């Protein structure tokens, strides 16, 4: 099994602030990787570098055969292969759920309308919101909006999906419905990288857990890692979080 995503010695600074300090890891096809760590540990930045929302200072990132760290990478092709779901949903407020989802397939992929419609209903039923086809984002709850955002990414049939703290902005009673959708995707064999604060969830769905600290991969291993941390930093982190 080859790596779908691979980071090699990635460095990134914002001005004088060193955010990533030599990050390396591989994600294989079908794997679910959870990145955990304190805020400021660089986990979200690492995720954003993977689909080039941020450029890196040094190192190499490759995703599905695209060399992301190369300046000449075709961003539009790269991003058709990577889906990302944001903490703040970022649905387009002026478009209906259907228009939000079909925008990418229709205009980035140039799909005919009927085909885009078919895909829209398919992904929307996967997240259980088929009845919201013609609703506007503001008419939905936070959990529903986030599920639509997941559907919007799925509609591009990505090879990899990135989740950037997708439940952090939600009320506790709404996180469940979103996590269930992600769990289903994991069960369906989707390659995923999750930046998350939900330790119980990471333990449940992740094949690999990466603990980031001070811009490095501090500790990594199977989900069992969370029960038996090797370093005092992770021990402390898990202790505080659980």
């Amino acid at each position, binding site marked *: 099994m080859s790596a779908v995503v691979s980071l090699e010695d990635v460095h990134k600074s914002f001005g004088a602030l060193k955010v990533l300090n030599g990050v390396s890891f591989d994600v294989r096809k079908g794997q679910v990787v959870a990145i955990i760590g304190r805020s400021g540990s660089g986990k979200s930045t690492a995720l954003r570098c993977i689909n080039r929302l941020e450029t890196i200072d040094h190192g190499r990132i490759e995703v599905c055969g695209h060399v992301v760290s190369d300046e000449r990478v075709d961003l539009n092709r790269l991003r058709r292969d990577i889906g990302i779901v944001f903490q703040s949903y970022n649905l387009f407020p002026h478009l209906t759920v259907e228009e939000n989802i079909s925008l990418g397939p229709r205009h980035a992929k140039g799909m005919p309308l009927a085909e885009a419609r078919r895909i829209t209903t398919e992904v929307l039923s996967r997240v259980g919101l088929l009845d919201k086809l013609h609703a506007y984002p503001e*008419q939905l709850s936070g959990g529903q909006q986030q599920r639509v955002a997941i559907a919007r990414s799925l509609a591009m049939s990505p090879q990899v999906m990135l989740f950037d703290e997708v439940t952090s902005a939600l009320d506790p009673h709404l996180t469940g419905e979103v996590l269930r959708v992600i769990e289903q995707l994991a069960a369906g064999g989707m390659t995923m990288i999750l930046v998350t604060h939900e330790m119980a969830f990471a333990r449940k769905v992740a094949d690999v857990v990466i603990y980031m600290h001070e811009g490095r991969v501090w500790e990594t291993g199977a989900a069992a890692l969370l029960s038996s941390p090797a370093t005092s930093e992770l021990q402390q982190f898990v202790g505080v979080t659980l």
Partner: protein
Amino acid sequence: MMGYKLEFADVLAQWPLFVQGAWMTIQLSALAVVLGFTIGTLCAIGRRSRYRLLSFACGTYVEAVRNTPLLIQIFIVFFGLSSAGFKIPAFAAALVALVLNVGAYTCEIMRAGMDAVHKGQIEAAECLGLRRAQVYWHVILRPAMEKVDPALTSQFVLLMLASSITSQIGVEELTAVANRVQSDTYRSFESFIVVAVIYIVLSWMMRGGLWAIGQVVFTRRRKLGTLA
């Protein structure tokens, strides 16, 4: 009123002229709004550009127009260009000046609207693999327009009123008609009262028309009644 009696009969007898003048005002304003909006929007995109020179050029144009009177702009386009060898008819000169004028104001308004579109929206669109132009079209322009729609409406009504100034280079619009009627009938005050009433009606019609366009274009507003 010191022996002066208002007498509208002679003035109102000239109603076909007023209709012609109003029609000219409407044509001039409609063309200026459509072209000015296009230029202004492009200019707003230009001002947000990464290319310093482009953004500087757009900024200079906007400042030059916003800090000089429309009357002078009209004179420069009409008399200035003709003295420099570019002879253009009064209507064309008036249109060019009005378009440049409203373009600059539209640019500032649209820029404010575009700046108000959240960065996350643009990132989300880019992550769907949309190209820059597609991102602008689908994710930036429409919400921006929706946000600044009231300001644009006010600006366009002001432009229609300001088109009265083009009478000064001989465009036969409403104000020019008023001048002609007052010199024919010697009923100056009455002539301008009549024209003022027509302008007020035109500005209400324009607000109504622009509101109706907004209702068609901004689907969400029509359906939910909410603002951007």
